[in-house]
C-alpha cells in the first residue's frame, strides 16, 4: 500500500485563528475586487465591459512599443496591447468608450496594414461587444450564482444541519473571492472564461467541503462523548489522504493545461489551479472551524440516523 500520508493527528482546529485571519484578508481582497468590478475600474474583459478586441498573428516578430506608437498616431492611444511572444501574436483591446458603430476592429486592421506593409498578418480573432450586452451577461451570471448558492445551502441544510449549509456556502464564497482577489491584484483580465473557471472551482470546492462534512457527520453520530472540536479534528485527519490525493490529481491535470494549453486556456487553468489550492485549504481550515462558531445544536439534529 503506497501512502503519501500515514495516519495523521494534526490539530487543524487549533489553528483556526490564524486561518480566519488569513482568509479574512483574502476575502477582503476579493470584496475590494468585486467593488472595483461593479464600479467598472477593474480589468474587466470586453465580454463584460463592452468594447473591441483584435488578435493579429504576424509573419515576423513585432515590437510592442512600435505597435503602440502607430496606434497612438492613429487616434487609438487607449488600446491595451498584449503579446504572445513565441507566435508573433499581438492582442489589441479597446474598452467600451469606443462604440461599435465606429468599426474599431476594421480601423485597427487598416492601421497595421498601412504601417507595417512588409509584415504580413492574419486576423486570428476579433470581438466587438456593445455595452448593453455585457451588462446583461453580468446580471445573468450573478443571478445564476446566487440561486445556486441558495439551492446548495438548502440541500446541505436538509441533509446535515443549517450551520453546515451556511458554512459550506461561506467556504465556497471564500474560494471564489480569494481567486477573484488574486486576479485583481495581478491585474489579470476578468473574462467570461475566467468566470466559468470561478464557477468550476466553486463546484470543486463544494464537493471537497461536503466530503469533509460527511465524515464529520458520521463521526458526530458515532462518538457522542468527545468534544465537537476533537470530532471535527479527527474527521479532517481521516479524510486528509483522500483530500491530498484528489487535489494532487486535479493539480496534475491543470499544470500542463496552464503551461502548454495555449493562450485561450491559460488564464482559465490558472484560475482553476488557484481554486483547487484554496478549495482544499478552505474545506479544512474554513468550512470545518466555522461549524465550531455556531453555538447550540452540537450535532443533536444529526443523531437520528
Amino acid at each position, binding site marked *: 500500500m503506497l501512502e503519501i500520508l500515514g495516519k495523521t493527528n494534526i490539530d487543524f482546529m487549533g489553528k483556526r485563528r490564524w486561518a480566519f485571519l488569513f482568509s479574512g484578508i483574502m476575502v477582503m481582497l476579493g470584496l475590494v475586487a468585486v467593488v472595483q468590478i461593479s464600479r467598472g475600474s477593474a480589468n474587466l474583459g470586453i465580454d463584460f465591459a463592452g468594447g473591441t478586441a483584435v488578435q493579429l498573428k504576424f509573419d515576423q516578430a513585432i515590437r510592442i512599443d512600435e505597435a503602440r506608437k502607430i496606434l497612438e498616431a492613429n487616434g487609438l492611444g487607449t488600446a491595451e496591447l498584449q503579446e504572445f511572444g513565441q507566435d508573433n501574436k499581438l492582442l489589441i483591446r479597446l474598452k467600451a468608450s469606443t462604440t461599435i458603430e465606429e468599426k474599431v476592429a476594421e480601423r485597427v486592421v487598416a492601421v497595421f496594414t498601412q504601417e507595417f506593409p512588409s509584415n504580413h498578418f492574419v486576423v*486570428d480573432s*476579433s470581438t466587438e461587444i*456593445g455595452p448593453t450586452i455585457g451588462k446583461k451577461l453580468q446580471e445573468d451570471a450573478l443571478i445564476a450564482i446566487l440561486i445556486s448558492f441558495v439551492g446548495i445551502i438548502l440541500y446541505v441544510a436538509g441533509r446535515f444541519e443549517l450551520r453546515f449549509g451556511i458554512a459550506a456556502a461561506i467556504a465556497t464564497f471564500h474560494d471564489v473571492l480569494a481567486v477573484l482577489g488574486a486576479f485583481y491584484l495581478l491585474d489579470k483580465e476578468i473574462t467570461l472564461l475566467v468566470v466559468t473557471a470561478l464557477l468550476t472551482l466553486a463546484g470543486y470546492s463544494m464537493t471537497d467541503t461536503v466530503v469533509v462534512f460527511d465524515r464529520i457527520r458520521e463521526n458526530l453520530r458515532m462518538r457522542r462523548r468527545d468534544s465537537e472540536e476533537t470530532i471535527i479534528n479527527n474527521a479532517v485527519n481521516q479524510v486528509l489522504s483522500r483530500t491530498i490525493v484528489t487535489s494532487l490529481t486535479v493539480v496534475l491535470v491543470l499544470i500542463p493545461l496552464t503551461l502548454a494549453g495555449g493562450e485561450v486556456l491559460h488564464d482559465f487553468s490558472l484560475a482553476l489551479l488557484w481554486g483547487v489550492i484554496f478549495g482544499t485549504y478552505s474545506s479544512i481550515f474554513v468550512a470545518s472551524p466555522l461549524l465550531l462558531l455556531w453555538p447550540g445544536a452540537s450535532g443533536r439534529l444529526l443523531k437520528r440516523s
Partner: protein
Amino acid sequence: MKKVGRRLILLALAVMLSVIFFIPSYQPFYQALPAWLKAIKPNKGITLGLDLQGGIHLVMEVDEDRAVEIAVDRSVVSLQDLLVDKKIPVESVTRTGPTQVTIQFQNAELKAQIQKVIEDYPAFLETESAGSANLLVWELRELETKRIKDSAINQALETIRNRIDQFGVAEPMVQRQGLKQIVVQLPGVKEPKRAKDLIKETALLEFKLLDEDNRVKMDLPTRIPKEKEAEVLKEAEAKLPVGDQILFERAIDKDTGREYRIPYLVKKRVMLTGDVLSDARVSIGQFNDPYVSITFDAKGGREFDRITGDNVQKRMAVVLDNTIYSAPMIQERITGGRAQITGTFSMQEASDLAIVLRAGALPAPLKIIQDLTVGPSLGKDSIDKGVQATLFAGALVVLFMMVYYRASGIIADFALALNLLCLMGALSALNATLTLPGIAGIVLTIGMGVDSNVLIFERIREELRAGKAVRLAIDGGYAKALLTIVDSHVTTLITGVALFLFGTGPIKGFAVTLCLGIGINLFTALVGTKVIFDLMNQRHKIEQLSI
C-alpha cells in the same frame, strides 16, 4: 445486492450506445464507414463551437423606429405623387415627426379635397389639433406602428436568411432572440468581413430621376474628395429646390486609385424600387468590367417601360442605400424588363450586390451589438494545444492512479475512460455544441470521477486496516463512500441546474456538460468499478487486494 451479470449487461449497453452515438461526431472515422451504415446515423453528433473552429457570431438589433420612419417617408413620397396626379397644388408634404405627416397648402378651400385623397391611406389618422386653416396633420395609427415594427424584424430575419443561403455557409444559424434581436452564427466562415458586409447592407435599390432643370442654379462641384460630402450638403441646403435632394456617386480615379465623389441633384420621388426585381446576376462588360444585370417582374417591367418611355433623354440615377451607382441617360424606351447596374466595383462586390438584390432589402438598418469573430487559425491552434495538453494531463492522472493504487488504480482508470466515453456519447446524442467552457465542464467532471474512486479506495483501505477480509472491505468501502459521493454530486448538480436555467451562452454550455457528467459519474463510480471488483471476487477468492 444485484446480480453481477445484470450489471455487466447494463454496462455493455451503455458503452455500445455511447459508441454508436459518438461515431458521427468523429468525421474521419464516420466518413470511412460504408454507405448503408452511414444511412442509419441516429444523430448529427457534436459540433464544435465558434471558439474552437472559427467563425462569426453576430447579435444585431433592427432599428425599429427607423423602419417606421422609412415607411412613413414612403407614404409621404407616394402621397406627393398622388396629389400631383390629381392636380391639387400643395406647398409641401413633409414628415414632421417619427410618425407625423404635415401637409401645407395656400388655398384653404383645398382642405376637403386633400382630406378626400388621404382616404386612400387608412393607416393614417387626422389629428384634430391642426389649428391653422392651411395645415393638415396626420398621424400613423398606433396599431399600424406596431405592425410595422413587428414585421420589420420578421422581414429582416427572412432577408438575412436568404442572403446567407445564397452566400453558402455550412450550418448557419439565424435566430430571433428576445423582442428585437437577431442572432447569426456562421461557423467556419473564411471571409468574415465579406459575410458581415453582406448581412448588414440594407440594400434598398431605388431609381430616381436627376433634376436637370435646377442643376445649373445649384452650381454643384463636379468631383470632391470623399471627406467633403458633409460640407457640400451643408452649402447646398439653403437653395435646395422643394422635392429634391443631393446624393453622391462613388467613383475611383483610374490614375491615382483614389476614391472620390460626384454630387448629383436628384428628385426625391422614387420611380421604382428593388421590390419589383425577379432576378439579379453578375455579367461581364466589354472592357472586362463586371456589372449586375437585373430582371424585373411583370409589374416592374411594365412600370419600367412606362417610366423610361416618359423620360427619354433624361438621366436616371440607380441608387443603392442612398449612394448612386450610376446615372445613365435614358436613350430610348426600355421594354424588355431588364436593366443594368454598372459602377466601379470588383467582381466580388458585383456578385455580393447581386446576392443582396436577389434576397431583397432590409426594412431598416441593422445595428450590430455583439460581434465575435474567430479566425480559423486561432480555432485550430487552441484545439491543438488544448488537446495535447489534455492528453498529457490525462496520461499523468492515469499513471498516478496506477502507481498509487496499483491494480485498483487500473480499475479506476478504466472508470475514467468509461466516463469520458459515455459523456462524449451523451453529448453526441444531444447534438451538443462543444465550446471551451464546455471543455471546462468536462475537466471538472473528470476530476470528480477520479475523486469518487479515491474516496472509495481510501475507505476500502481503512476497512482493510481495520482487519476486515477483502470482500467485506470492498463492500464496506463502497457502502460508506456511497453517501458522500451522492451528497457531493447532488450539491454540484444543484449548481449545474441553476447555471443551466439562468445562465446564458457559454455558461449554459458549461452547465450542460457538468450536469450530464455528474449523472454519468455516479453511474460509472457506483456500477462500473464495483462490477469489476465483484467479478474478480466471484472467479477466484482474492486474499490480497492490490490497492
